[in-house]
């Protein structure tokens, strides 16, 4: 493993030398030796190093001979690894996929500047003597600078040192006489990307290299170059390492033609030009031809490293699309680091559409049969289960519950088919593992993207069900932020005992009930379950038989708690799901049949009050939080599941629907609303008149116009609120729409008012609508019309219908909010990525401090009191309840 990492760094950097110290422990397993990587050292590779680690010298740009066999000394040389099935690597003797590949090298005919080090080379040239190579700082000052740099590093770290070095180098620019050999220094400039000039005369890379060779190790330290890891002259290449073929495999097209990787193309160019350069030099060609070839080689090597250098045209395919060379491979979201190293693909996973099923438990997930027969879980064979597991093998991959593979102790997998079945049943013995189909009760990790918080990935128990969708209890939609308008979700099956144990103890739904964001329940009853509980507990009464029928349907069998009488109230039915010694006091959102808002539970019986969103809803459900505190997560989940089912069954029994007539208002209310609107309109017109006459009293710090807008906005908002009140007062309490709003299941009084009476002022950027035509919003208004209807006030309700102008205003704000969402998502996504990247290493240490990865203390005590939010109640410890309980 360590070896592989070395390759990666090599690939990533091209030139750094790397080394890895391994931890002492070596775990022997199945003939392999696994090692932990302890650290990675970065450095620049010397020419000797490049030659030493190479297995082949590449001398010809040809790839294959006539038979299609890789040419010796070519770029696809089989000493560099194999990518064809059947061939064996000449270096390590292993086959395809076993051989990880080996480096080669080419000797460059002339030195080439490494593009990534150009700025460092420039600094070195500018601040060292051209003759003796010493740094342009007098002897006595060197020590002082060095001490200062060490001090800076102590204080501000490597990044700070880098800055300090920059300052020193900047100072040296003006020195024009070497303090050691008195040689006069010339002005050195750079012609980007890779040409260095001295007094407008070119310094050839050979000259650059000889100058860099003269820099002493001691002086090097002042430039921030560490002796032993780097030498300045290594930044001018004389050897170029050739990456292994496994890093740049060719693809065989359907036609049988080979299509080479971008890197191979680039390397081909380099080798070809390099050979030409060699030949020309040996043949004693004129200097101009050599120079031209040299420049061309420089271009190819530069674009090999980075094909997006500002001053160079990018190297292109014949089709015109730019080549993806080393830098482009590493960089950005689709690059090696973020795409392949930090994010990895996984097996044993599945994705499909989700749909609701309130009859499932909250911590269950409904898995389609097809998926259950494709995804497997390995079960190891022991003397006690061997017969049991053999039956799975016997049923094979087509009969549920069967098995798809058996795994031999040496790790070799064997597929079970109709033909091999018989033999495999005989083969299975202790020490084998059987990859059997998923069954009820197995563990799965369920996830919906975007995975914004840890509740986006939770562990569920599997329930194998017919049809083709994943099913989940609607109560767990909220943490996933899922709905059923076509959402898809992913499932992952942990494959080892350790993974399963960890998933079960840390990720199961009940362990995630309390959000670590604010310390309240994220899971609660929603929608129908809330309105059902509300109807049940607000003056509902039924016969004992009906009540028992209801409770049976949610899976209850013990009715000893049910009072022994013929008429059973809804509160008594609801009490059945509560634990026996549960006490709770809270406030409800809606008032109960006596107009009170207190919810009192004594000894597990709901004495008074209605159950609504404030008690059992998500985010707010205080009753749920109390249950969790007192009885723990398992019990809470159980009670919540029952409440949910009960609520739905009640609605099923009573019937629940909505109609347009739900928001009908009596004649009187309609008149009142009209009055309010007319009055407001008059007032607005008054204001406008005052504005035109300049009599408006101005708010401090505002212009007259701004003041007018503010006053109008205030008036219109007041009008909307007033109509809202009228709607609430006169709207029928009995209709289903209002029941939903009252119980908190869906909708709010504002929505009601918008449907029944007035939609209200449409605002763009916090102001009334002003845009559109010149000094008016729509062409049907007069220019300069400031009245309410000309500036986006919608005085109709949704039910009565909007006038064309009003509809346009509504569409404007609708479009605005769509844009807002579209712009916000990437912005907040980036903020989140930065936050997560900056803070991911912070953890609480055993001494209660919060530290980052290198051990620097961020906080002496987490949150100043060491309280874990997910174990608190809204961030606090509920002292009052403790006092009450004493």
């Amino acid at each position, binding site marked *: 493993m360590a070896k592989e990492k070395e390759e990666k760094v090599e690939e*990533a*950097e091209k030139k*750094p030398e790397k080394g890895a110290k391994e931890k002492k422990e070596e775990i022997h397993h199945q003939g392999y030796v696994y090692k932990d*990587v*302890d*650290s*990675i*050292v*970065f450095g620049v590779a010397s020419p000797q190093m490049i030659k030493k680690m190479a297995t082949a010298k590449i001398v010809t740009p040809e790839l294959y001979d006539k038979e299609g066999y890789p040419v010796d000394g070519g770029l696809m040389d089989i000493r560099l690894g194999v990518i064809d099935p059947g061939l064996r690597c000449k270096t390590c003797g292993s086959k395809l996929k076993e051989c990880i590949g080996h480096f080669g090298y080419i000797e460059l005919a002339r030195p080439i500047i490494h593009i990534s*080090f150009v700025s*460092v080379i420039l600094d070195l040239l500018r601040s060292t003597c051209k003759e003796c190579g010493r740094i342009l700082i007098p002897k006595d000052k060197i020590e002082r600078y060095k001490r200062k740099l060490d001090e800076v590093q102590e204080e501000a770290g490597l990044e700070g040192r880098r800055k300090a070095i920059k300052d020193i180098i900047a100072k040296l620019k003006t020195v024009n006489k070497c303090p050691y050999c008195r040689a006069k220094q010339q002005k050195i400039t750079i012609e980007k990307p890779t040409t260095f000039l001295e007094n407008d005369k070119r310094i050839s890379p050979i000259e650059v290299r000889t100058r860099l060779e003269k820099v002493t190790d001691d002086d090097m330290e002042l430039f*921030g*170059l560490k002796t032993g890891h*780097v030498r300045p002259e290594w930044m001018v290449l004389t050897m170029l390492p050739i990456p292994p073929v496994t890093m740049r495999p060719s693809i065989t097209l359907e036609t049988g033609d080979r299509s080479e990787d971008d890197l191979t193309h680039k390397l081909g160019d380099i080798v070809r030009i390099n050979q030409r350069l060699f030949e020309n030099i040996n043949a004693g060609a004129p200097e101009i031809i050599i120079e031209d070839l040299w420049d061309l080689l420089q271009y190819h090597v530069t674009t090999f490293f980075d094909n997006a250098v500002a001053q160079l045209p990018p190297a292109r395919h014949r089709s015109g699309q730019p080549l993806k060379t080393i830098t482009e491979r*590493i960089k950005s979201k689709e690059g090696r680091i973020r795409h392949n*190293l930090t994010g990895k693909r996984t097996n044993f996973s599945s994705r499909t559409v989700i749909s609701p099923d309130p009859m499932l438990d909250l911590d269950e997930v409904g898995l389609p049969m097809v998926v259950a027969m494709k995804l497997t879980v390995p079960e190891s064979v022991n003397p006690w289960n061997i017969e049991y597991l053999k039956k799975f093998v016997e049923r094979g991959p087509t009969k549920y519950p069967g098995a798809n593979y058996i795994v031999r102790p040496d790790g070799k997998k064997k597929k079970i088919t109709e033909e091999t079945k018989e033999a495999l049943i005989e083969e299975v013995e202790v020490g084998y593992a059987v990859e059997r189909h998923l069954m009820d009760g197995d563990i799965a990790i369920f996830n919906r993207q975007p995975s*914004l*918080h*840890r509740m986006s990935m939770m562990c569920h128990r599997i329930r194998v069900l017919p049809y083709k969708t994943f099913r989940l209890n609607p109560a767990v939609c909220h943490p996933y932020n899922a709905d059923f308008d076509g959402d898809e979700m992913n499932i992952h099956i942990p494959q080892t005992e350790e993974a399963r144990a960890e998933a079960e103890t840390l990720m199961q739904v009940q362990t995630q009930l309390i959000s670590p964001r*604010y*310390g309240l329940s994220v899971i609660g009853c929603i929608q129908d379950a809330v309105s059902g509980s509300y109807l049940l507990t607000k003056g509902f009464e039924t016969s004992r038989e009906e009540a028992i029928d209801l409770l049976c349907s949610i899976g209850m069998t013990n009715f000893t708690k049910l009072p022994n009488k013929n008429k059973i109230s809804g509160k008594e039915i609801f009490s059945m799901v509560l634990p026996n010694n549960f006490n709770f006091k809270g406030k409800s959102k809606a008032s109960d049949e006596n107009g009170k808002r207190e919810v009192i539970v004594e000894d597990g019986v709901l004495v008074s009050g209605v159950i609504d969103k404030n008690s059992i809803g998500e985010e707010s459900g205080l009753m749920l939080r109390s249950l969790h505190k007192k009885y723990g997560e398992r019990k809470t989940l159980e009670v919540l599941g029952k409440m949910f089912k009960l609520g739905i069954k009640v609605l099923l029994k009573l019937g629940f629907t909505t109609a347009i007539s739900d928001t009908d208002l009596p004649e009187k209310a309609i008149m009142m609303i009209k009055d309010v609107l007319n009055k407001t309109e008059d007032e607005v017109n008054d204001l406008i008149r005052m504005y035109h006459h300049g009599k408006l009293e101005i708010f401090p710090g505002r212009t007259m116009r701004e003041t007018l807008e*503010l006053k109008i906005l205030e008036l219109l908002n007041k009008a909307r609120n007033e109509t809202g009140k009228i709607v609430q007062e006169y709207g029928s309490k009995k209709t289903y729409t209002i029941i939903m709003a009252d119980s908190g299941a869906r909708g709010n009084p504002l929505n009601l008012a918008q449907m029944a009476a007035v939609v209200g002022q449409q605002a763009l*950027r*916090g102001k009334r609508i002003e845009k559109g035509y010149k000094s008016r919003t729509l062409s049907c208004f007069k220019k300069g019309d400031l009245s309410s209807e000309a500036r986006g006030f919608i005085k109709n309700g949704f039910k009565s219908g909007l006038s064309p102008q009003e509809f346009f205003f509504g569409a404007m704000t609708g479009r605005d909010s769509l844009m807002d969402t579209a712009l*916000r998502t990437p*912005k*907040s996504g980036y*903020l*989140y990525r*930065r*936050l*997560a*990247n*900056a*803070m*991911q*290493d*912070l953890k*609480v240490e*055993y001494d209660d401090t919060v530290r*980052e*990865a*290198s051990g*620097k*203390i*961020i*906080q002496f005590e*987490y*949150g*100043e009191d060491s*309280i*874990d*939010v997910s174990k*608190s109640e809204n*961030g606090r*410890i509920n*002292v*009052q309840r*403790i006092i009450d*309980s004493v």
Partner: protein
Amino acid sequence: MGIYQEYKEKLPLSLFEEVKEKTKGMPASKAKKVLARVYKAYLNAKVEAGESVGLVAAESLGEPGTQMTLNTFHFAGVAEMNVTVGLPRIIEILDGRKEIKTPMMEIYLKNPYSKGKDIKRLALSIKETTLKDVITEVSANIAEKKIEVKFNKENMKEIGITSSHVISACGKAFKGISIKKTDDGMLIKIKGGEDKINEVYKIKERIKEVYIKGVKGIKQILPVKRGDEFIIITAGSNLNEVLGLKEVDETRTVSNDIYEIANVLGVEAARQAVINEVNKIIEAQGLNVDMRHIMLIADTMCFSGNIKGITRYGVVSEKASVLARASFETPIRHIINASLVGEVDKLSSIVENVMLNQPVPVGTGLPGLVVKVRK
């Protein structure tokens, strides 16, 4: 109060004070029981070692970030000013920007003034006054190289300055001019020959911006009544000078410019400012995020002694691990720089270990299990 002494060290201060307050007047035996139970509840609620609190904090702010509005400007009622709110403001704070979009101050006043005494005059004296605020007209006479300025006497009186005041301010601002007082303004004469004609135009424009009075940087003022006292809300911020005014209650006056706070009052004040500002926005959006998360973010920004933004130049650049930095942004730069100094990546944080397919050193990846195998 012997029973409390035992728990004073054991409980966090705020919790201890709360219990003390609530158990007041209780029989000692009951109070003791309460204390014991509170202590037990506290121990149960403590964070466990290895808990990845940083990531939880990032999640806690990142997740609601998707629900915030993007509205840059927002009218919060009648008598408030324009402020950057919502997601853009959060981004601004966490970036650690030196220049913020809408700097603001809330100036609290000492007793007689906080009751409304001279509030308008005081507010006007704080506001930065430039020449254009006190004049009605500027006209240039190119032939004679003269600029005539007419004063707005009413405004001047309101702000409390005299003509000579203005004239001396203008005199200091430019070289090579002479100023004469006229009946309703002043007359500026540019010295020098024909070549100075361009100067006339330049000075005519620039003179409008000449600083006369008030606190520099305070662009707008708005006295408002908050509760039963008057405060002054300003657009633009200059903490250093405002805190020096004798009418100002320096203990409560705040700015929303975090960088300025760090410069004037130090990094601890800046940390608190980050917490307050972020909290204010989250609350205004009706979201619920626990203080601890915001505190942790503020601490990561401030623990080095300076304000570091959550950017590749700030907090992330301070990381010890090369690979962790490279995996964030500009990977090539980080790897090249690391190779020059022979940096060693000790693999002590998360991403490197993810890259290497090794257990990460937080949470359950932290402890090593030693199992004794029976031979």
